[in-house]
């Protein structure tokens, strides 16, 4: 980074630190914070969408759809998250490769499962073995997002379905008396009003999602926990910047990051809550109207 970093062994503490903190490896650590934030930004809306569909399915008048909704939420809420985090990416990856194998290599005569090995033809590999490392990383992250959305979607479905039940029945009956169809009641009366009831549950879920991001590490994604451990570990003279066990400091940085995220989220949800309460027949809405 800096010109004077050519031989770190000769540097004083301060320039040494400046060089150390700007090595390419450190920069990867900084970038991994962005990966976590990006993951949150992508996962939250997808999980919310999955949850919304789940909640609607749970209320559906079609029995099979209702069974799917209830089954999905019950199973995911009951099985430990970590089982799904390990299962979903693996199942998706092998499932997709299996399907691609069937489509792209119909002439393949060897079994896909050979003893312990899972072997598909080269054209069916996901991503292709020649693809750029970035593609492999993105693919791994996409699988992780699928796992997060699957798990958190179920919780969101439960929260949203609770919120839908919390909308005063009188509102829906009035709408019916005015001659609105079921669909109109759902989209014009129920959905706009339910958010304020869903917000506490959703904000809670968001906090849990933030806290769950270090699980990325389990999926082999080089996230902030991976880099904190890797960089913080004692470094011998095999490295250009030898140092002792600094994991404490690195994990401290993670602590500050997560606390910062929590604080920001609290502020954002506070504002959102005020906005959604406006004009609502709830305690918060009434208080707002009076003042």
């Amino acid at each position, binding site marked *: 980074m800096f010109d004077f970093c050519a031989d770190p062994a000769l540097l004083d503490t301060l320039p040494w630190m400046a060089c150390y903190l700007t090595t390419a490896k450190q920069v990867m650590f900084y970038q991994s914070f962005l990966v976590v934030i990006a993951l949150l930004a992508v996962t939250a809306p997808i999980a919310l969408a999955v949850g919304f569909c789940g909640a609607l399915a749970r209320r559906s008048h079609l029995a099979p759809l209702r069974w799917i909704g209830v089954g999905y939420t019950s199973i995911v809420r009951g099985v430990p998250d970590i089982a799904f985090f390990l299962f979903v990416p693996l199942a998706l990856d092998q499932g997709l490769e299996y399907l691609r194998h069937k489509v792209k290599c119909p002439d393949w005569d060897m079994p896909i499962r050979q003893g*312990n*090995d899972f*072997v598909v033809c080269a054209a069916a590999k996901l991503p292709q*073995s020649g693809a750029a490392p970035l593609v492999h990383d993105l693919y791994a992250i996409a699988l992780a997002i699928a796992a997060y959305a699957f798990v958190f*979607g179920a919780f969101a479905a439960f929260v949203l379905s609770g919120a839908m039940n919390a909308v005063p029945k009188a509102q829906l009956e009035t709408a019916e008396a005015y001659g609105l169809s079921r669909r109109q009641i759902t989209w014009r009366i129920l959905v706009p009003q339910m958010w304020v009831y869903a917000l506490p549950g959703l904000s809670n879920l968001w906090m849990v999602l933030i806290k769950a991001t270090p699980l990325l590490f389990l999926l*082999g994604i080089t996230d902030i926990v991976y880099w904190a451990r*890797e960089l913080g*570990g*004692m470094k011998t003279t*095999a490295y250009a910047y030898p140092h002792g066990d600094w994991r404490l400091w690195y994990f401290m940085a993670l602590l500050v990051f997560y606390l910062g995220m929590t604080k920001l989220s609290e502020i954002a949800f506070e504002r959102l809550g005020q906005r959604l309460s406006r004009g609502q027949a709830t305690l918060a809405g009434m208080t707002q109207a009076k003042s």
Partner: protein
Amino acid sequence: MNKLILSTALLALTAGGALAQDTIRMGTEGAYPPYNFIDDNGEVAGFERELGDELCTRAELTCTWVTNDWDSIIPNLVSGNYDTIMAGMSITDERDEVIDFTQDYYPPTDSIYLAPEGDIDLEGAVVAAQTGTIQAGHVAETGATLLEFATGDETIAAVKNGEADAVFADKDFLLPYTDDGSLVVVGDPVPLGGGIGMGLRESDTELKAKFDTAITAMKEDGTLNTLLKKYFGDETSTY
């Protein structure tokens, strides 16, 4: 969920567009210097990186490096996330049942104990070792209390903060930690394992043959010995 399936499908299609069939993905742990580690540029480095690159050149293969936790390094090879393992992995019968190995590229090496003080009774001590290594297996057999950790780095930290009395691992990995004088070698070196080899899927016989040929060639012309001396010192065992 729909969006997700769509985006994954899209990714699958775009990924299918780029074709370069002969790229071999080399899996390593990246946390076991000087065998393999992530250097300050964030690249895989060390003995196995240099050896692996040379082997790929000789076998006329294009190779890229992938890091994976030691714990899951064999399962992820078997499920096809990468094609080889070069991670200081000793050839053992248990591993050979699940994956295949090339011939060894590093002769059987000594493992040593490291502790803060020299006068400890290793039989009754708490000894730290990395999970799933031959050293962990050996400690369990000696009757000492085994304390397992996911990475080699954590085993060192455990000894330094007093959680374990000693650490047991490959000599080449441990010796650099004695440089600052805080840890000393305890007891005699223990020869373990059948040498270090490259792990491959059992179904990948063609690739195995290619690497075997390249390793043989490097053994014959002495380049492997030069590389071993460069990373492990002049006294290291050679071919």
